[in-house]
């Protein structure tokens, strides 16, 4: 996998981040012992959403929410956020890069989820975002009792950066 290339257009930065963010989420899913079928089966819808909302500047965060459907009520068991920073590299010179080590570190620190856990992918967008077919409005699961750990920027392109963070339960 490439770790750094140089091009000069914002469009390429959007494409680079949209696709590699999805690839990184899939890596987390596989590395955490979750079934990758679901993200693969939704790939086209997810990628179109990411690309559209990055291009329009509305995408704030993409989240992998992991939950245990056997639990009642708050059933969140883990969460991973890619937070978009539109000013990560002001006057960015066109470098496009991906740091798979940041993702690998996050997977190692988080560990695996129990069998039977499921997941969904949520995009948090600013008001006024363009509609993308296949997406529906939702709300995040509660993160009460969880601690957020910021890892660092995992993907960069042009002026854009995607910072990775994960959540672990902080109280029993």
């Amino acid at each position: 996998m490439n770790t750094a290339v140089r091009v000069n257009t914002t469009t390429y930065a959007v494409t680079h981040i949209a696709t590699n963010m999805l690839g990184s989420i899939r890596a987390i899913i596989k590395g955490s012992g979750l079934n990758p079928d679901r993200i693969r089966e939704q790939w086209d819808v997810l990628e179109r959403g990411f690309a559209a909302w990055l291009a329009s500047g509305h995408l704030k965060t993409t989240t992998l929410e992991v939950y245990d459907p056997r639990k009642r009520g708050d059933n969140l068991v883990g969460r991973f956020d890619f937070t978009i920073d539109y000013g990560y590299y002001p006057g960015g010179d066109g470098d496009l890069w991906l740091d798979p080590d940041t993702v690998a570190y996050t997977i190692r620190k988080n560990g695996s989820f129990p069998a039977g856990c499921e997941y969904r992918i949520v995009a948090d967008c600013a008001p006024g975002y363009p509609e993308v077919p296949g997406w529906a409005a939702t709300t995040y699961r509660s993160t009460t009792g969880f601690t957020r750990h910021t890892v660092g920027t995992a993907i960069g392109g042009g002026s854009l950066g995607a910072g990775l963070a994960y959540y672990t339960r902080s109280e029993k």
Partner: protein
Amino acid sequence: MSRAVAAIPVRTSVETWEAITGLLAPADSAGRSRLESVTNIAVVLITAEYTQQAPIVVMPSNGPRIRIRTVHGVDAEEARTEEVPLTARPCADPGWTMSLPCGVDDIEEIRDALRAHPGIEVRDVTEGITVGEPAPSDVTEGWSINYGELENP
């Protein structure tokens, strides 16, 4: 016969597969529908850049095999300007098969996903072509196919 198709960052993974399907089969054809039905499988292989390391190989019912590689990163922009359509679309007629390259970490998942798509198979990216019989016009007694050559750029 081989072709190179520009991928990320010039195109998203889905757009890249759409460009490949456009090379291989006419719009609204049965072949195009069959290719589109594996979009969400092929895009995983494109995103992981397996299709840059080794070609997608199409074996039409008649005629030469087609090798398609994707070009990623800084070379993708130039690759897009140099894309050349095929003279004949190998998936226009029924009977074609396809071999997709895949890394060992993903191959079982992708193989399972392709079970519902007979004629489209996955091979280890480090190996030669492992699926499909030679196209009928290629069958000639005393000849063999150099699978290693198929892997060359």
